[in-house]
């Protein structure tokens, strides 16, 4: 049986992949958005079992853990291609400021995890009033 992908480059050499290799990040890749008193972290982890998802926050450090099972193949079944990841991941992230861990919220939809992290009150910049004579 013939399977072919309409790829211009063969699997042995792909100039784009070589370029990307220089920028490997720890799985899973995250994007972090920040405002004065709030941070948002997004990551793409499709097919993850939400029960295995573990998010823990301490001060300005966030740890993300989760796992996804590989397909179990029966006798006589075989992979033609296996590009998707499986197994457990752990990722630690340093945030730009300490976070109020009691107010952290997370949503997981369509395979995207959104974490909302409000800045810790004690860490917010305080306006210092100047008393003048």
């Amino acid at each position, binding site marked *: 049986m013939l399977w072919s992908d*309409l790829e211009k480059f063969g699997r042995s050499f792909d100039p784009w992949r070589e370029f990307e290799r220089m920028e490997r990040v720890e799985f*899973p890749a995250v994007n972090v*958005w920040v405002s004065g008193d709030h*941070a948002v972290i997004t990551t793409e982890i*499709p097919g993850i079992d939400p029960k295995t998802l573990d998010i823990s926050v301490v001060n300005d450090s966030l740890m993300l853990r989760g796992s996804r099972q590989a397909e179990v193949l029966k006798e006589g079944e075989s992979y*033609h291609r296996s590009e998707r990841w499986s197994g457990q991941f752990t990722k630690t992230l340093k945030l730009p400021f300490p976070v109020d861990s009691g107010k952290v919220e997370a949503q997981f939809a369509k395979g*995207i995890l959104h974490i909302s992290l409000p800045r810790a009150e004690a860490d917010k910049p305080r306006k210092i009033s100047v008393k003048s004579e």
Partner: protein
Amino acid sequence: MTDTVREMQKKEAETPETGERTRACRIYAPLVDIIERKDDIVVIADMAGVDEKSVDITLEKNVLTIYGRVDAYTPENHRLFLSEYGIGDYQRVFTLSDEIDRDKIQATVKNGVLRLVMPKAELAKTRKIPIQAEGIGGVLNLS
């Protein structure tokens, strides 16, 4: 015991030969697993941000195109602090063999994972050929 995950990068898809898309966003090739089973072929594609309403699967002649539309989900009033991945649509194109029964392809999307089950056409299924024993007929008459 679970293994640690191999590092994965989001791979940019090529500009399709048919021309540019009208949507001005990046396009990525989703990672896929392709499994051949006894009666069907299963294609599993990771397309985070996609649900059953935003995925398009088209089969023209024997070219299968998977397209997933992703809406940008960047928060307002925030600046980008760290960017390890890009957000965009997904596309991947496959050439199918004649062994697939095109009318019976089924697709489901759950948690950003597309699952295509493509039953093999009757001819492609391996058939076990029953063997009948050829014996000596008749009854032995012992007299």
